[in-house]
């Protein structure tokens, strides 16, 4: 049963991507990218359908979701038949096998990634849901949504919902999706989300980097200890990192290549990012600033209007839903700006100690700093937009913790040591992508490639 459900998810995601591709023949899309994005977009849209069903009082179940999804897939198929036929030409697929030319180094790194991924999936599917945040939040909501067929479940009326139930519904909705299709556990969604993040990251890196370079940085992504430990837990941090980071990377690629496909995919992914966690809004804001720059530079306001409408709609929609349907207003922040040097210093100390702690993030942030230093002369020319997006998002994200109201929320030290630590997942794919694709690193891997092929 779940196989049918997952096929529908992949088909839905792929159809939407095809709709965005249109008739753009210049597009070069990799198969890894398509596989990763199809799941992320497909499962995200299923939860949007759940929200719509809830609003119109239509029962959420496998049948209603499948019907709507397949209707959309069919409609897109009929409108974009030409694109589908041409899709295979757009995927570079020169997969001839020559033993002597095989990139053994790539093979070793790929095997390492594969082993790590298999263990993560095994852990995820073998162990039960045990994380408190999931049992008392996302997975609980997923189970109850699947049972009651609506988002505004009975738990809200009996005080059994808890703080996590008011998170935007992407994660809990995706867990509900697994239960609706007869699964005993929702962990398969966690594993597929993680796999999709890795696939999309590798596919995007390959647009700029050699295969060895891309797989090396994909390995660095998977072996990041803290992130890896979360890859088998039913929490929101890995999904939100996938949507925010890949969305922002797509926005950057659009900024460089100006192809509408990247623009729409980026807007949709960032929309699904705030459909996962509210704090992901900082990435949409960073993207918005990039759009403002683009609008001023090109005197074109159309893109910024579309971007704002798509990427901010879920945030606004969910806030209204919380207020008027569930009756809850988010008020965990100090709403005015204030200056507290002690708090700021304390936060900065936390940021430094968490970010550069080798046990949590390995060499990730060290490599990032190292590549910026290495690229210092060209830093303003080489992927400066991406670097700016990363830095603005980081400042805004740190700002959220500065503005937290300690009366309504846990103290800063607890929030930093738990919440901020996981929040850094957002940045891992971004900084690794920057490191992988900046000129000196690209050059280094190109030299290796030339040496390998005997061209030097």
């Amino acid at each position, binding site marked *: 049963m779940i196989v049918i459900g997952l096929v529908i998810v992949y088909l839905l995601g792929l159809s939407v991507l095809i709709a965005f591709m249109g008739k753009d023949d210049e597009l070069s899309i990799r198969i890894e990218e398509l596989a990763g994005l199809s799941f992320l977009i497909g499962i995200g849209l299923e939860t949007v359908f759940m929200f719509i069903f809830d609003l119109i009082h239509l029962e959420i179940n496998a049948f209603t979701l499948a019907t709507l999804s397949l209707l959309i897939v069919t409609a897109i198929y009929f409108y974009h038949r030409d694109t589908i036929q041409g899709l295979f030409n757009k995927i570079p697929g020169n997969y001839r096998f020559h033993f002597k030319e095989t990139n053994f180094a790539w093979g070793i790194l790929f095997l390492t990634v594969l082993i790590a991924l298999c263990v993560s999936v095994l852990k995820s599917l073998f162990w039960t849901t045990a994380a408190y945040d999931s*049992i008392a939040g996302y997975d*609980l909501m997923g189970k109850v949504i699947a049972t009651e067929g609506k988002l505004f479940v009975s738990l809200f009326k009996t005080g059994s919902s808890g703080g996590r139930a008011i998170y935007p519904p992407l994660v809990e909705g995706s867990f509900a999706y697994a239960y609706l299709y007869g699964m005993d556990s929702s962990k398969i969604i966690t594993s597929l989300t993680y796999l999709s993040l890795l696939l999309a990251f590798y596919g995007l890196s390959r647009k700029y980097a050699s295969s060895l370079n891309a797989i090396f940085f994909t390995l660095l992504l998977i072996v990041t200890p803290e992130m890896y430990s979360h890859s088998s837990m039913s929490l929101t941090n890995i999904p939100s990192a996938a949507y925010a980071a890949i969305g922002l990377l797509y926005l950057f690629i659009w900024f460089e290549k100006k192809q509408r496909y990247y623009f729409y995919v980026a807007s949709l992914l960032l929309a699904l990012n705030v459909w996962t966690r509210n704090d992901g809004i900082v990435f949409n804001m960073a993207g918005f600033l990039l759009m403002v720059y683009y609008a001023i530079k090109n005197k074109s306001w159309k893109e910024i209007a579309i971007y704002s409408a798509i990427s901010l709609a879920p945030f606004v929609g969910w806030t209204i839903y919380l207020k008027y349907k569930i009756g809850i207003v988010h008020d965990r922040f100090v709403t005015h700006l204030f200056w507290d040097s002690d708090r700021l210093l304390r936060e900065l100390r936390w940021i430094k100690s968490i970010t550069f702690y080798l046990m949590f993030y390995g060499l990730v942030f060290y490599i990032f700093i190292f590549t910026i230093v290495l690229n210092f002369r060209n830093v303003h020319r080489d992927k400066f937009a991406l670097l700016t997006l990363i830095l603005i998002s980081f400042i805004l994200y740190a700002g959220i913790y500065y503005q937290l109201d300690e009366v309504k929320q846990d103290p800063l030290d607890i929030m930093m040591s738990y919440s901020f630590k996981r929040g850094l997942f957002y940045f891992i794919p971004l900084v690794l992508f920057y490191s992988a694709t900046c000129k000196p690193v690209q050059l280094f891997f190109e030299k290796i490639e030339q040496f390998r092929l005997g061209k030097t």
Partner: protein
Amino acid sequence: MAKKRRTQKKRKTDKREIKFSKLRINLLIALGVIGLLYLQYKTVPGYNYFVKRQVIKESRLILENFSFTLDQKYQVELKRDYKSIEYVKENTPDSAVILMPPPDVFKNTIFNQRGAWGIKSKIWSTYFLYPRILIQENERDMYPELYNRITHVMVINQWGLDKLNYRVKRWMYYTVLPIRLTDSVE
């Protein structure tokens, strides 16, 4: 003719040598990558932890316990709290509204004391007991209608026995009992 053949043979040998050296270079780079991975594993504590703990130890643990049932997995992870919550589940109908003690009552008991998880948390317990409804003693004023519908009481360390409309003679550390005795229960 012989010269031509010699040249062709030489070209072939050269080509084979190039291919062979390509293979050697390829292997050399692969060895370099293995060395780099080993260096990272040896020198960076996070990666050492990743390999030893997160990959090797975890997979060994799974393989050793591969035949575990769902129930056993929960018991390994959630210990006594899970067993107790299962006991409540087995002894109450799906439609039950269960009164549970306020969190203080769970202090210094055999149940989990660390962190937020465990039977002491109403929402955590709801995960296992749903569709049964849980209400805590301190929520009486918040949900008066629900409070009046209570069918069962979770008894912890004698707490809750006074809520029953009958007397229980036996000393009870942990159990769940109907709030009033009906003929069938008697």
